[in-house]
């Protein structure tokens, strides 16, 4: 019972916030709702018993990415944005496509209606640690490399004097 309450509340939070993200006109609000939606997903992780994921979701997404978004929005926000429409002309077509996709995906999900969890979830931090530094050590290291590269790329792109003046047209 508790699980269901938790699931539905968290799922509702995530879905509603997500809808807000994609529909609201004010981008700052969007970013704030994104944080909320991500927190809802973190709750879902909690319901699933994935404790380490829960923690990292909070830390990385809610604490990192969402905040980064907010900063970015603030950096290049304009007053005119609030009055302008934030959705383009193809929204109807997009809606149609999305509806079809959703229908397809949900039909796929129906197959797992009878699948229930076996037993209580076990804490996963320790096995994850073993896995990362054991079998998956190579992807793990590669990920660190990717992160470094991303860091360097970010710095490179945001340096003011780097882009040549004639680059745009």
């Amino acid at each position: 019972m508790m699980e269901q309450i938790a699931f539905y509340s968290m799922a509702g939070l995530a879905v509603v916030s997500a809808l807000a993200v994609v529909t609201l006109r004010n981008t700052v609000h969007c970013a704030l709702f994104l944080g909320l939606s991500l927190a809802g997903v973190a709750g879902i992780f909690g319901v699933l018993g994935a404790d380490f994921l829960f923690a990292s979701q909070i830390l990385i997404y809610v604490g990192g990415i969402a905040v980064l978004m907010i900063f970015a929005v603030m950096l290049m926000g304009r007053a005119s944005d609030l009055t302008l429409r934030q959705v383009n002309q193809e929204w109807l077509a997009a809606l149609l496509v999305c509806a079809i996709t959703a229908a397809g995906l949900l039909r796929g999900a129906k197959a797992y209606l009878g699948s229930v969890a076996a037993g209580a979830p076990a804490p996963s931090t320790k096995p994850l640690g073993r896995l990362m530094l054991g079998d998956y050590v190579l992807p793990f290291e590669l990920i660190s490399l990717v992160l470094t590269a991303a860091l360097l790329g970010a710095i490179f792109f945001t340096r003011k004097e780097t882009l040549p003046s004639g680059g745009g047209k």
Partner: protein
Amino acid sequence: MMIENVWLVPLLPLAASLVILFGGREREDSPMPFVGIAAMAASLYISLAVIFDAATGAAALPFEKEWLWYSFAANLGGQPSIFEMRAGVLIDGAAAVMLGVVCLVSLLVQIYSLGYMHGDRKFKRYFAYISFFTASMLGLVVSNNLIVVFACWELVGVSSYLLIGFWFEKEAPPYAAKKAFITTKLGDLGFFLALLLIFTYAGSYNLVRLKETVEMGYLPPMVLTLIGLGLLCGAAGKSAQAPLFIWLPDAMEGPTPVSALIHAATMVAAGIYLVARCYFFFLASPIAMETVAWAGLITAFLAGSMALVPYDIKRVLAFSTVSQLGFMMCALGVGGYTAGLFHLTTHAFFKALLFLGAGSVIHAVHTNDMRSMGGLSKRMPWTFLTMTVGCLALAGIPPFAGFFSKDQILEKVFEHSPVMFAVLVFTACLTAFYTFRMLFLTFWGDGRDHHRVDHAEESGAVMTVPLMILAALSLVSGWALEHGHAFASFVGSGGAAGHAAEAAGHAAAAGHAINPMVLAAGVTAGACFFIALAYSLYAGRDFSRAQRLKSLFQPVFDLLEKRYGFDAFFLGLVDLADRIAVLCRWVDIEVIDKVFVDGWGLLCRVAAEISHLFDALFVDQAVDGCGYVSRDIAGRGLRSLIARGQVQEYMLYLAVGVSLFAILK
């Protein structure tokens, strides 16, 4: 037993020639000629010993000895197997006589040449060639294998080529040498084909075995006739029979001793000898026999008539040689085996004598032209004397050698056919005429060219002694050999060939015969009459009467001087061959090359053009078409509809795709 060593006879001069050619340097007083002379003397010794043994019955003739030469794969009797080619010596009476004659004349000529060629800058080489020639000739004589005979036959031709062209720095000798070689080679084609036929049908080249095969009648008559004609063809080339005699007068460009040895006494007799050696083929084919007789007859007459006109002393002798060879050939053709060989022997002596005498004269006056001579009898008595003997022998005056042998021939011919006999007798009379015309022009009267004649001197002993020896032989050989049919029985002992020939002759003789005494008297009288005629025409200071006669019969003289047009005919043949050759070259460059190389290339290029065209029209257009479709239709057209550079549009299409996946699963 000397006959066991008879194989040495050709090998000694061969070794000598190699020694002379490669040993020592070319010097005026080179000792090398003596090597050749020594080898020749040794060969002569062996030959004489063989003859002596055979004559006394110490050695049985025919004598055969052979060794394995080489073996080759052959289809004999339709079954491939290894055929052993054996080579060796076969001595019968004829071969023994020829050995003696060749060795003797060669020895004398070599000694004579010591004087004649003295001072020549190729002194040593000359003797090497002479020795080589003698070796080849002796090889031809002794060999029991027709292939070896043919090989020596050709080698004889080559040495003749080398010796005719000995003074190659001049213009004429190389040409004459080439002419001689090619003409005899033309005849050799027949010989060659005969050899092919012989092996194909008889499967051997051994003369003894061939004789057995032929006499057993294993060969079809047609083949025998062809073989006979082929051999005759070869013999006609080498022995200068009509129509292949054209080379012999030109061959006189060589040194005179060479003319004496090769073109009078020995090599030209090789053709006669070949016919004699292969007589069994001819006996088996009447057509071949008849052809031989007629070829000889025609040659004898044509050459005899042509000898009437030249003023070159050596040419007269050359035509006379051809004529005499015709006599021998004719004799063989009518079955006079011994008569032909007898004449061959005596002719070798007196013709060598005449040539060497002529050489002596030429040596003294430095010209061949008899119009510049005359009155030499006083200046060169020994030469004159010996040459007179030679002339008498050639004219057939008793008791000189020519009389006996010619008499025998005429006898045989009369038995065969009176028409041929008449022609031959007339030719014999002509012989007497031109012989003495030459003698009178050279030695009688006064010197017409005082500058030359007054400085003429008798040659040295090294030249005159051989002349005397030959003169003695010319004087006695006929009588001595005729005496008691010595020659006939000796040559006959050489094998069944002689007997068979005599038998054939006697069979023919059943119809008509002639009293030998009547014949001898008649022919001698005729000869004497023509000698007198020659005297009246040519013995005086000038020969105005001869000139008048000539103007009277101008066309005849022209014809004779042009040698009946044979030269022109063969030159035309050569010219024709040249034209064909040029045509061939043109065809090769312009047609064959164009068609098969350039044409091939053209074909490839046309194919290439076509495939290029196809490529450009279809393949490339297809590629371009793909590009066009994707760029202009799919690209530009589609893009102008939906692609406006909007990322979200693209994403929409992507999402459509995703949705399709989602619903279709």
